[in-house]
């Protein structure tokens, strides 16, 4: 219960960061943070039903749920790919406008377009 509330706060923090931070790189930080929060949520809750890692060496029973873990492998990788691509856009925008500030970029790009 307390863990879920903490994760909820983490999602609030990340979402607030995406919206209110003006620096593009910080927006990408925040995106990483909410992604991490959801990954923790899945794995943490999935591990409540067992006490052993899902590696079936002889005699192991009572394992945790392996499905959320496998799903989250995919989610982690997708998250990193998205942030790499976002960073490349940030780099390009910096090369064009000379700043990471989203308001300034918007003003300059608006002039050029």
């Amino acid at each position, binding site marked *: *219960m307390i863990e*879920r*509330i903490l*994760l*909820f706060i983490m*999602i*609030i923090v990340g*979402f*607030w960061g995406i*919206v*209110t931070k003006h620096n593009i790189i910080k927006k990408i930080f925040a995106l990483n943070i909410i992604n991490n929060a959801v990954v923790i949520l899945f794995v943490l*809750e*999935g591990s*409540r*039903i*067992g006490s052993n*890692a*899902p*590696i*079936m*060496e002889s005699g192991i*029973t009572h*394992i*945790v*749920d*392996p*499905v959320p*873990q*496998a*799903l989250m*492998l*995919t989610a982690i*990788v*997708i998250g990193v*790919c*998205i942030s*790499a*691509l976002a*960073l*490349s*856009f940030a*780099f*390009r925008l910096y*090369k*064009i406008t000379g700043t990471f500030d989203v308001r300034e970029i918007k003003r300059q790009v608006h002039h050029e377009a």
Partner: protein
Amino acid sequence: MKKIGTRIFITLGLLPLLLVLLPLFLDGTPWPVAVRNYLELNGVKDSGAINLVSSIYLGFRVFDTLGETIVLLTAVGGTIAVFTRSGAILTDGYYNSNISALTDSEKQMLLDDPSFTLAGEKRLSHVLRTHLIEVVTGVLGPVVLLFGFYLMLYGHLSPGGGFQGGVIIASGIIFLALGNRIGHVNFLTRALVLERIEACAFLLLVFASVIGTAMGEGFFTNPFNFIPGNPASFIVLLNIIIGLKVGAGIGFLCIALVGREIV
């Protein structure tokens, strides 16, 4: 004053979504156990892999993994293309390879401008730091590569697997690149080699998905079913292919990103 007003406005705007989320987080329904119980009984028998996460990742839900690999491939290609278009020059390995073409002052600039400093940072200690990095990473590189291959090949038996092994292989490649002296390039740290490995591995992965179709077993089924014994052979094969693809792809991405830019 106006700034505070905007803040309050934004906070009020975001509040509804967060309020809506709250019941989902407070909901304490016990986690379902049906799938876990099924896998505990039949998972190893069905897929042959002792590591159940691996058996889901590369067996039961391998189609997701194919999608994930495609995301990675597209992201690596796209990121490098956008960086290149913005004026960053791709280099072979960490250091610029055609050093002989540079003038003396440019060489001096390369030596002065150290590896992991950011633009505008001027400190004298950095020269020492690069030497430290060169020696340590150069020695560690092969060990890390070995560990990566271990993870990749034993993914069905122990924690690890193609993807994790691949990422470790990529860090091994980066270590090798960092350990190189200026002007030296390893076989593994050349951009072209990595690109070729990645392309081949992707082609193999797509073909691996349709071999089962051609053998009459169905899309993405184990084509080695006719061999009696361990049914994990297909998972091992996929582990190797994905490991090579991910290692080459991420290694390529990282080398391209930290590679020296001369514009």
